[in-house]
């Protein structure tokens, strides 16, 4: 944006750079931060404890049975894959489009992506009946199975996301290594190890920038693949509600929507707990992200109409049973809630200028995220719960997750949030050198003076 780009003389630029460094250094948590971290940690450990029970007793501890054989593990997996797509949206797409306001939110979105895709990989292992035989996918892998495609693209996306987080972070880690005093030895050692001997030379910056460009281009098709392939896990079957050619685009558009919600929520919380950040995560950023969200919600609405209304026009045998369950039956309250609060209300509220202020935008983003989770539930579970219901014990007809199943799923959500939280605690969540570039500080000044300032 033009307003960020001022003509700067070198002295001002250096001072600004020092200011950025000062503002954006990772800091120790206060009492709220510590409590939050502890809470997430306990949640994560509880999930692990319940999972050990599952390993001992089998998937019988869940609410799943032969009739509804995929449950919230799978819908949670879809949710994680969805939200992880934001990394490619903000980092890659906005970067390649040279959108100038993206710098303060790239790292946040990339951390969300890495945390989500990591736990997507873990929760899908939790769903396996025989996780001990995972190696069979390599020993006996068959390329025509969509699961193998999913394993490949999720692993690739995870690698690309980690690199896309890591490379631009190198100057930040090096800065922490050299300038952060009074920190424990292990932390110092961690920075020193992770900084890969970064010495702020122009050559290193050149390599990093080139790497970012290459990664940004590579990650876009892979990002589209992860969610398209995830949708094919369902669309490649014959089941009404899953048997849809619209599924790939429907999943991808929903993923972008929830991902943008994730970034907005992160932005708001960062500003709330680090007052200095509002110079970087400005009201303008909320305004722009909110507009982006309106667009994404409209695209999602388009694919949702394709997904539900066209089958509903025909009301073909089994489709009609599925749709009746969703529209007016057992799942109707949840279905209409997620459509209205997860798509339509945010779309309308964010159309207004006052709606795009930080707080209302944050509230809309949280709505979108919560509804997105339940939307995945509605995509996965109802399809399995109306097929021939004979010779099935009464208890199997409706699926309701057990407490342990909820705790394991909650543990995975806590784990993903823990990754993000710990990242904020130990690394600069806003990239100083990218902000500096965006705001018109010349490369020469950045390379030379990036390492200065903040002598505390």
């Amino acid at each position: 944006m033009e307003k960020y780009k001022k003509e700067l003389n070198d002295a001002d630029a250096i001072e600004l750079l020092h200011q950025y460094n000062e503002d954006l250094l990772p800091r120790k948590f206060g009492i709220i931060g510590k409590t939050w971290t502890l809470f997430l940690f306990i949640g994560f450990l509880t999930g692990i404890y319940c999972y050990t029970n599952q390993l001992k007793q089998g998937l019988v501890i869940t609410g799943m049975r032969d009739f509804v054989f995929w449950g919230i593990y799978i819908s949670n997996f879809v949710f994680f894959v969805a939200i992880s797509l934001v990394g490619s949206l903000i980092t890659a797409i906005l970067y390649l489009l040279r959108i100038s306001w993206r710098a303060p939110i790239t790292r946040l979105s990339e951390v969300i992506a890495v945390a989500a895709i990591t736990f997507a990989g873990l929760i899908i292992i939790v769903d396996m009946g025989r996780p001990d035989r995972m190696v069979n996918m390599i020993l006996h892998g068959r390329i025509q199975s969509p699961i193998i495609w999913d394993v490949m693209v999720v692993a690739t996306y995870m690698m690309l996301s980690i690199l896309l987080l890591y490379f631009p972070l190198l100057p930040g880690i090096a800065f922490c290594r050299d300038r952060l005093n009074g920190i424990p030895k292990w932390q110092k050692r961690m920075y020193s190890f992770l900084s890969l001997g970064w010495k702020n030379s122009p050559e290193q910056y050149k390599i990093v920038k080139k790497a970012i460009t290459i990664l940004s281009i590579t990650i876009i098709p892979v990002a589209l693949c992860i969610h398209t392939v995830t949708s094919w896990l369902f669309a490649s079957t014959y089941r009404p509600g899953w048997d849809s050619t619209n599924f790939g685009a429907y999943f991808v558009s929903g993923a972008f929507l929830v991902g943008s919600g994730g970034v907005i929520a992160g932005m708001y919380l960062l500003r709330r707990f680090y007052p200095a950040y509002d110079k970087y995560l400005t009201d303008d950023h909320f305004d722009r992200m909110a507009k982006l969200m309106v667009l994404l919600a409209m695209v999602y609405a388009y694919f949702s109409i394709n997904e539900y209304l066209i089958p509903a026009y025909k009301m073909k045998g089994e489709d009609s049973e599925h749709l009746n369950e969703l529209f007016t039956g057992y799942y109707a309250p949840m279905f209409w809630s997620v459509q209205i609060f997860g798509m339509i209300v945010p779309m309308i509220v964010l159309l207004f200028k006052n709606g795009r202020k930080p707080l209302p935008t944050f509230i809309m983003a949280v709505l979108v995220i919560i509804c997105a989770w339940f939307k995945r539930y509605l995509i996965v579970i109802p399809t399995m719960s109306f097929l021939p219901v004979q010779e099935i014990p009464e208890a199997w007809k409706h699926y309701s997750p057990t407490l342990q199943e909820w705790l394991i799923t909650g543990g995975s959500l806590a784990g993903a949030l823990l990754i993000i939280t710990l990242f904020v605690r130990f690394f600069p969540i806003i990239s100083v050198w990218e902000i500096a570039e965006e705001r018109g500080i010349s490369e020469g000044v950045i390379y030379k003076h990036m390492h200065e300032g903040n002598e505390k």
Partner: protein
Amino acid sequence: MKEDNSQDNKTTRKDFLRKSLLSGGVLASGVIGINKLIADEKDSGEKVKVLTADGKLVEVDSGNISKCQASTTTPSSEARIGIPGKKYVMVIDLSRCKHALKCQDACQRYHHLSGMNVWLKVFKMQDSENTAPYWLPKPCMHCDKPPCVKVCPVSATYKREDGIVLVDNERCIGCRFCMAACPYSTRSFNWQEPEFLSESKGAVYSPETGFPQKKGTVEKCDFCPDMLREGKLPHCVTACPNGVFYMGDLNEDTVSNGSETVRFSQLMNDKGGYRLNEILGTEPSVYYLPPVSRLFPFKDAEPGKGKMDASE
């Protein structure tokens, strides 16, 4: 698990060895395993070639060999190939089914199925209000274009040359994608450690028997390939009092329900055979004869009769 091991017990050691050396079909008729080498027998100095369970030819001193029971279990590698020259088909005559559930009882018993896993279900079918209800036994369709095999990431479920679709529960990773893919919902999952009767302890696993079942893996109707290998009919076929099930070989164009053996093509022609969900293109190996000129009038099941009707 097989009842007919007794004949092997009668054979002498010499007979046994000679048979195993000479018979080319030794693998086909069941694998000879050397359970243990007996130490207290003296070396005779005579070397004998024997075939091990994993198919290796080894030479051992004949004094060191003791007789063990010939296992009828087919090893996983061989169970993948199938019975040569066969193409199995099943015909289910809906006009004869009265929901006696003897097929299901036999299936549960002979496959040692525990818990709520039921391979053969009998559904009450009534397509619309004005059409007549009838009973439909539903085994695995053993499709020629099996969607379950297509989606399996590790080839734990596979299609054999003889048309049978099996599950190798020593390879299955428990992702349950096959259950999602199967349009006939024939598959069950072992949600917990299966319970076995004491008689079944120590049984050797083969995909052809599906026994012992394993926690965290998928299972389903297997057309009883262990019986077919011996030239016998599957348990559901022999157990049915009304001759509903016919089993046979498409290559020979013959199917039998135990009491009568008929031409498959003739049966299809005479009674208007069809397959379920032909529209999906899965090409099942199970054919149905329509419920016309029925042997029994339709009567609703008494509550609690079916395996699954009993509340858990």
